[in-house]
C-alpha cells in the first residue's frame, strides 16, 4: 500500500514538472511549427508546409515582414552586429568575472561594498540603466557604437557569472594555491598552473553565459542601439511598424536555435566541471 502511494506521488511530481516545462515551451515549439506555415498570418489551423519564410526568393515587391529571413539584408547586418556584441560581452564577462572572483574570495578591505556594486549590475531595473546610459552618452557626445551595447550586457552578465563561479569553487582551491606560493611559485604561475586549471570550466561557462545573455538582451540595449542595431532591437523596431508574419517566427527560430545550442554547450561544459 505504502509502495503504490509513493509511486503515485512520484508520477504526480513528474507530471507537475512536465506541465510546467510544457507551459514554458509551448510558445517556443509553436513558433518553430508556425514558421513553416504557408499562411501569411500567425494563425491556426496549420495550412501547409513551406520554407518560404526562411529562404523564399523575393519578387521585388515585398517589404518588411514579407521578405524571407535569408533575403532580409538588414536582419543579417543586425545579426553581424549581434555576433560582435555577444563575443565582446563574452570576453569582457570572462575577464571581469575571473578577476573579481579571485579577489572576492579573500577578506579584502571593502569586499562587501564591492560585491554589492557588482550585484547591482543585475539588480538595477534595466530601463533605468538604459536611460541613464542614453543620457550620459548624449551629454558626453560619445558615439553610440555596438561596443556600448556589449558593455551594458557585460554589466548585466557579470553578477550571474560571478555567482556561478564562486558557488562552485573547489573548497581546497586556496589551500593548493597557498602550497604553491609557499614553494616560491610566482603569483602569475600560481594562477596559470593551479587556479586556472581548477576553474577552467567555470571560466568557459562565464564566457558562454555572457554570450547568450548579450545575444538576446533588449531592455538595456534598446536605449543605446542606433541604426540597424542588434537583432533584438531590430526585431522590436520592425514589429512596431510591420505586421507580424511567420517571417518573424522564422527569424525567431534561427536565433533561438543559436541560443539553445550555446546553452547546451554550457550545460555540457558545466557537467564536465562537476566530475
Amino acid at each position, binding site marked *: 500500500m505504502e509502495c503504490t502511494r509513493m509511486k503515485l506521488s512520484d508520477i504526480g511530481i513528474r507530471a507537475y514538472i512536465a506541465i*510546467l516545462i510544457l507551459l514554458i515551451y509551448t*510558445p517556443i515549439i509553436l513558433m518553430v511549427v508556425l514558421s513553416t506555415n504557408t499562411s501569411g498570418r500567425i494563425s491556426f489551423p496549420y495550412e501547409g508546409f513551406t520554407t518560404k519564410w526562411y529562404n523564399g526568393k523575393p519578387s521585388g515587391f515585398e517589404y518588411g515582414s514579407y521578405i524571407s529571413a535569408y533575403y532580409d539584408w538588414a536582419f543579417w547586418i543586425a545579426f553581424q552586429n549581434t555576433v560582435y556584441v555577444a563575443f565582446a560581452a563574452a570576453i569582457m564577462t570572462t575577464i571581469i568575472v575571473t578577476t573579481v572572483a579571485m579577489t572576492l574570495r579573500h577578506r579584502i578591505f571593502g569586499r562587501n561594498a564591492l560585491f554589492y556594486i557588482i550585484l547591482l549590475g543585475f539588480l538595477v531595473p534595466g530601463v533605468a540603466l538604459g536611460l541613464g546610459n542614453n543620457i*550620459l552618452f548624449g551629454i558626453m557626445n560619445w558615439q553610440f557604437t555596438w561596443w556600448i551595447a556589449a558593455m551594458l550586457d557585460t554589466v548585466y552578465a557579470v553578477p550571474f557569472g560571478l555567482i556561478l563561479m*564562486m558557488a562552485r569553487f573547489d573548497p581546497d582551491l586556496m589551500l593548493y594555491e597557498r602550497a604553491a606560493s609557499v614553494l616560491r611559485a610566482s603569483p602569475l604561475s600560481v594562477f596559470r598552473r593551479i587556479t586556472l586549471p581548477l576553474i577552467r570550466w567555470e571560466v568557459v561557462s562565464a564566457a558562454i553565459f555572457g554570450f547568450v545573455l548579450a545575444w538576446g538582451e*533588449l531592455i538595456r540595449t534598446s536605449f543605446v542601439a542606433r541604426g540597424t542595431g542588434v*537583432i533584438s532591437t531590430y526585431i522590436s523596431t520592425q514589429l512596431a511598424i510591420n505586421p507580424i508574419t511567420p517571417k518573424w517566427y522564422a527569424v525567431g527560430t534561427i536565433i533561438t536555435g543559436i541560443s539553445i545550442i550555446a546553452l547546451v554547450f554550457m550545460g555540457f561544459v558545466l557537467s564536465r566541471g562537476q566530475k
Partner: protein
Amino acid sequence: MAQGPVPSPGKKTSGFRIGGYSSYLLLVPGLAIATIFMILPLAIMTVVSFYTTAPSSTGYLKIFTAQNYIDFFTAPNTPTLLLNTFSLALIAAVICFAFGFPLAYFLTFRIKNATFKNYVITLLIVPFLIDASIRTVAWIAILGRDGIVNYALLSLGAIHSPITALLFSRNTLYIIWLQTYIVFMEFPIYLAMNRIDPDLISAAKVLKAPPHRVLYDIVFKLSLPGIICGFVFVFVSTLGDYVTPNLWAGGVQTLGLSISRYSDNFLWPYASVLSTMLLIISVIVLFISFKVVDIRKLVYE
C-alpha cells in the same frame, strides 16, 4: 556534489593574497565598467531629473528646479502608475513563487536522478535567455486572435467569435513573466534547499510530524533566504521590463513603459524623474530584503 551547482561549504582558510596590493589591481576592469556604465549613468540621470525641460537641442536647460518632481507627485495618474508598477511586479513574483517553490522542493527532495535535475534547470534558463521580442511575440500563436486557444474553443463550439482580449491582458503579462523569470525564483530556492540537511526531515518524520509541519517548519523556514532572494530578483527584473507590458499589457501603464515613452519623445528630465523613482523603489526593496537575508551567503562566507 553531483546533483547541481551546489555551493560547497567553504573551508576556513586564512586570507591568502596574490601579491598583496596586486589583488586590488585585479579589480580595475570590473570597477571601471561598473563605474562608467552603471554608477555614472545613474548619477547623471538623477542630476538631469532636476534640470528644466526646454525645447533646446538637448531637451533641457541646466537650471536646477524641483518642478519635475512636483509635476510627478501632483499628476493625476501618478498613484495609478505607482500602484500598477508595484502590483504587477509583486503579483509576478508571487506567481513565480507559487510555481517555483514546489518545483524546487521536488527537484531537491523527490527527484534523485542528477541528469534529470540538470536538464530541468537548463530548460528553465532557456526562455530567459532567448530574444525578448521573439519570446513575447511567440505567445500570439497561443493567445492571439487566430491562436490555438481560440481555435480550440471555436471548434469545440464554446465561443462563436474569437476572443481578442485573451492576448491583451495582465494575465498574458504574468504568463510571459512566469516563463521568463521563474528561473530567478527557482534557482535561489533550490540552492537554499540543497543546504537543508535531509536528516532533519527524516527526524521530523520519525517523530511523527504531520507533513504540513515538515513543509512549513523545516523546508519553508530554512529556505526562506532563497525565497526572499527569488522574490527580489523577480521583482526588480519585472520592474525594469518595459518591453512586455508595451506589447501585451492591454494599455496598463507602468513606470517602465512611461520612461520609454518620455525618452522616445526626448523629454529627458521627466523620464529621469520616473527612472529615479523606479530606482528608489528598487533600492528600498533591496535594502529591506538584504537586511533580512544575507545575500552574500550565495557567494561567499
